[in-house]
Every structure is written in C-alpha cells, then in structure tokens.
C-alpha cells in the first residue's frame, strides 16, 4: 500500500494546477446548459484542448497525454479545485469515447476521437425514450436498412445539451422481430440533417439543456454503427458501466463542493449543523478513497463491474446530503437565485441542490442500481 503520489504524479499535479491557475476564466461563464453559455464553454474546451488538457488519459494521437488513471483523477481534482467551467464535452469524452476505444474500428477512432477531444464535434447521449427510462431494453426507436446505412425513426428524450450538440449516440431496434435486449444496434446519429427535429425542454432549474429528438428518416451511414449490427445491448452496457463507474462523477467534484460547504459554514456557523458539515467533508474524502481503491484494482487487472452501481448510489446520495446541508445553513436565504442582490454565493447552492436531486435519477435510477447490486453482487434471487 502506498497512498503517496509518486514524484511524476506530483509533477503532473503541479503542471495541471499551474496551467489552470493561469487560464481558468476569472469571471464564471454563463451556464453551459444555456445556448449562449454553451458557446462560451466550447471556446473554453478548445483552449483546454490546445494545451492538451482536454482528455489527459487518451493517447497522444487523439489529443491526450497518455496519462494514467491516477493522473486522470489528479487532473480532475485540480480541475474542480480551480473552479474551471463544467465540461460540456463530458457526455462525449466520458461516456461515448470509452465505448469507441473498446468497440470502435480504427477508422472510427481516427475520425471521431480527435474531433471530440478538440470540441469540433460535440456529442449528446440519447438513451431515454418516452417509454424507456430505467428500462433501457424497451426502446422503440428503430432503424430501417437502406443503401449504405440505416434510416432511423423514433423519439429520444432527456438528451442533455441535445439542442446544442452535433451528434447523438443511442440504441435503435434494427431487427423488427426482436424483443427486449436483442436486435438492438448502437448508432451514432448526426443531428445536422433532414429528418431530425430537436425540441429543447426546459429543466426545473430553468436551463434548456434537456432536448427531445424526433427522428423521421434521418440517415446513419454504416460507418456509424458502433460494435456491430444487433450487438447494441452489449456495447451499451459497456458504456453504462463506464457511466456508472469512474468517469461520470470524479471525486474532485465533491471535494470541491465539500470545501465550499466548509467555507460557507465558517461564514455562517450553526453548531447544530456542524457534524453534518463535517460529515459532508468526510463523505467526499471517503468517495476519493473508494475511487483510488477501485483504480488500483483496475490497474492490477481487475474490473469495476457492479461496484459501479454502489458507487453511483453513494455519490448521488452524498451530493443531496451535502447540498441540503448548505441550504439549511442558508435558511431563509436559500431560496434566492443568482442575480438576487442578497443571494449568498450568487445562489449557486440552490442550483447545486437542484442538480443533485437529479443524481438518483439519471444514469439508471438508484432503485435500478440497487436491484443490480442485489442480483449481481449479493446474488439474491429474482
């Protein structure tokens, strides 16, 4: 056991910190989930890429630094610590890219990954449909075979930032006689084409980052089939496993939030909430430890597996406890949104709380995650 960082890891951290301190915008950008803010964020993403900080763990040829998993975690810690903008590329680089690395052809990697790391093309996930939320296998969108590819039909919902992105990825039924997990294909769909209608859907926090995507004969070339026709379930499970596992929510995010909470407490102390503030800080540290343990296991040849479900339950519920504690510290000031002259921390805590509330829902509800752990880890009967 060696929980110290190596000298090269420390240098990596120093480099990241120095670059971020010099380059993170001093004035916060507008919300990356609004149209205007999205554009600002893309500019930032391009700057990140130019300095090769956008995808540190990728091979250099796709825009990365060949960084180790530990270095990636270090980068994430520094990224959040610096107060840098949220990553509007994240559903591409964290959720789609791992699947491309695992299932993509060389041609796909070379075509898609560099444009993704450089924020030339941005990707949105399209897992959900009106009748398929936690029950992903019940997708109804389908694809019909045509010359050189597929025409796709159906409706995808809750495609985060779908109104601003260039492409979506998701499952389509390619075998009309199939049911449930079979006969599905993982397709990458260009949004800038006829047969695609994108309707922004406003979220409760006021951002229009949700979108409904209506597909009526949009074309997907064969080159945009990922992992083989009718192999979509297997391919998607790989993605959702990444999604639930390491990359969706890295510890740095919660360590930063916990530090902000401690800071808030110091400005507005309330002894009755002291233990809960302490606990929020402990929880973030604990999540970091758990993650380092997982990363070590992966480095030593193990897999994440269903542990990623435990992980998701933990961070999503921790995030709610943390932001609820902040709102309790704020008391009657909690309701004031950013822009209010008397808002504390510009009203960020309420937004953070609203976002946290979504945590137990997206990427597979926590009920479904608990079912997964019950079945796969505890081997309980159905």
């Amino acid at each position, binding site marked *: 056991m060696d929980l110290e960082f190596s000298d090269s890891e420390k240098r990596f951290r120093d480099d990241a910190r120095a670059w971020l301190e010099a380059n993170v915008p001093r004035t916060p950008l507008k919300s990356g989930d609004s149209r205007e803010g999205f554009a600002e964020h893309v500019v930032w993403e391009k700057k990140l890429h130019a300095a090769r900080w956008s995808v540190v763990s990728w091979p250099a040829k796709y825009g990365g630094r060949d960084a180790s998993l530990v270095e990636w975690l270090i980068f994430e810690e520094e990224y959040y610590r610096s107060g840098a903008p949220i990553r509007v590329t994240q559903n591409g680089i964290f959720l789609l890219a791992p699947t491309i690395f695992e299932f993509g052809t060389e041609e796909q990697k070379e075509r898609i990954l560099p444009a993704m790391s450089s924020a030339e093309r941005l990707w949105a996930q399209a897992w959900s449909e009106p009748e398929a939320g936690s029950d992903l296998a019940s997708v109804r969108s389908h694809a019909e075979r045509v010359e050189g590819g597929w025409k796709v039909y159906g409706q995808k919902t809750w495609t985060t930032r779908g109104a601003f992105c260039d492409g979506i990825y998701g499952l389509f039924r390619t075998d009309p006689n199939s049911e449930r997990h079979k006969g599905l294909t993982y397709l990458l769909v260009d949004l800038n084409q006829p047969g695609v209608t994108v309707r922004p859907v406003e*979220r409760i926090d006021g951002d229009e980052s949700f979108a409904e995507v209506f597909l009526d004969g949009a074309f997907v070339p064969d080159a945009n089939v990922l992992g083989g026709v009718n192999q979509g379930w297997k391919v998607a499970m790989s993605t959702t496993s990444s999604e639930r596992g390491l990359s969706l929510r890295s510890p740095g995010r919660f360590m930063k939030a916990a530090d902000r909470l401690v800071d808030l407490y110091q400005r507005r102390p309330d002894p009755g909430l002291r233990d809960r503030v302490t606990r929020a800080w402990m929880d973030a540290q604990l999540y970091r430890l758990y993650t380092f343990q997982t990363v070590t296991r992966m480095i030593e040849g193990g897999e994440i597996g269903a542990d990623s479900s435990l992980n998701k339950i933990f961070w999503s519920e921790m995030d709610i406890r943390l932001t609820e504690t902040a709102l309790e510290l704020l008391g009657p000031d909690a309701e004031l949104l950013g822009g209010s002259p008397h808002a504390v921390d510009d009203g960020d805590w309420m937004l953070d709380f609203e976002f946290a509330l979504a945590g137990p829902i997206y990427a597979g509800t926590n009920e479904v995650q608990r079912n997964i752990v019950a079945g796969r880890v505890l081997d309980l009967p159905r």
Partner: protein
Amino acid sequence: MRFSFTEEQRQMRDALRSSLTESCPSGRVRAAWKTPDAALRTELAEQGILAINLPEDAGGLGLGAQDWVLLAEELGLVAAPVNLIETLATNPTLAAIGALDLASQVGTGAEYVALEEPGGYALDADKAAGILAVRDGRVGWLRDATLVAQTSVDGTRRPFKVDGRFEAVDADATELLDRAALAAAAELVGLSRRMLDLAVEYSKSRRQFGKPIGSFQAVQHHLVDALQRIAFAAPAVYRAAWSVDTNHPNRSVHVSMAKVYASEAALFTGRKALQVHGAIGYTFEYDLHMWMKRAWTLSSAWGDVRHHTDRVGQFVMSGGQDA
C-alpha cells in the same frame, strides 16, 4: 377531548376546494411565474377568505385559526400564487392596534399588508399599503422603506429585502409570527398532499419492465413513507390552530412542532415524488416542480426546521411539560 373539525369548517374547506379546482388549475400557477396573479386575491376576498379572521366591525367573519387552517391547506393543494400567510397573520394584529380601516380594505382585497419574514424578506412589499415587521421582539411598521427586489427559486414569490424607519405598535410579536408559521405549515401540508397524489397517479400509469412502476415495492415504500409523514404532520398543524385560538400556554411550542413536521413532510414528499417521476418530474413543463419549489421556500420561511426545533428544545430542556 374532541380532535376533529366541525361540519361547518369542513364545508368551508370543501367549498374552497371546489372553487379552486375550477379557478386555479396548474396553468394559472404557471402563468403567475410570468405575471403576478392580482385577480386571485380579489377572488379569495369575494369568498370572504381574506377577512375570515377580522372582527365583524372591520367587515370580517370574526373566525379563528381552526376555521382558516384547512383553507390554507387547500391553497397549498393547488399551490395558489397568493400571499395568504401574511394576511392571516397580520389581520388580528391590525385589529389589535385599531387599524380597522386598513384591515377592512385588506379584507376586501383592495389593500395588502406585507409582513417581513424572520429571515429579512417581505413578499410583494412593493404593492403593500404597509409593511409590518418584528424587531427586537416588538411589532412595528417599516416606514419610508427601501426595497431591494430579489429573485426566488419559486417564480410566484417576489421577495424584497426591506428596511426603513421602525415605528413600533402595541401588538404581540410572538402571536403574529406564530400565526404566520402556522399558516405556512398548513400550506405545506396541502402542497405535500398534492405532490403525493401526483406521484401516486404517475406511478400507476407509468410502466417499466412490463408493469406499472407503482407495483414495485421500492416505489411503494417511498410513497408510503411520504404518506406517513403527511398523515402525522397534519394533526400537529390542526392542534396548533386550536392552540392559537385558545392562546394555549404552550402555543408557540405547538406551532413550532407544526412547522417542523409540515416542513419535513413537504421536503421529504417532494424528494420522493421527484424520484418516482424520474426525468419527467425534472422538467419545467411538468407541474411537480412548482409545488416542490413552494415547499422548499415555505419550509425555510417563517422559521426553518432548525429554528423551530430549537424553540421546542428550549421549552423541553427547561422542564416544560405538555401532557
């Protein structure tokens, strides 16, 4: 010992429910996010509700908290975009200080008297004929007030930070704030009931894995836990209404209990309702968030859970008895 409402009180509740079901659908609440709903005060005035606890010589009905507590709950049920809390709280104060003219105009809906929340904000202060506030345990008017508009997460609320020349009046501050906290607690119970209803209905119609999600034990137990909190919060609120009317020696303890349990029921029910809904509940288009945000704001306004728990704690730890 009889812990139930009179037939008359229930009829008033039923009448208001009928009229609000008709007149205040969720679309009206949604519209009030854009434009304040001035008409709703008038409509409530026409039903006598704004004057319910004014004396008859101010044109009121001379009724008490036991008469209005169920009505406040109904306003919560529809998330009515109106500040009834302030009016129910300040009416008896206006009567007590002899401001009968102003009181009667509040009762008709012609005027509105704002009340600064203990947190320092007053809703719709810009439209108020006067702003009452409590400072150093005394009630008074804030004269020549400066108003700084804030934006609330609940788009129907228009809070202002207020300050001004404090002109004390001869009225009981604790009684005033107790009435406000009680009214808020009652609204919270109504908000909770509707959020639970929404979630129950949704869970019956939404299908996943081949069956309604309401048939999954995890979803069922979420909803039952919310129901339990609401079912137990309600009697705390109703008892507090009786204690306000009878000026019970432990009135403030009872009001604090009401506010604590109602706040927690609403926060808990909101979370569970959102979880049961999934992403649809997270959209602005769907109604749930308007109820949820009202619940967030009312649970911290008029004394939050920490404040009221502490008030009960002081009573209990100093040997107070309530049986």
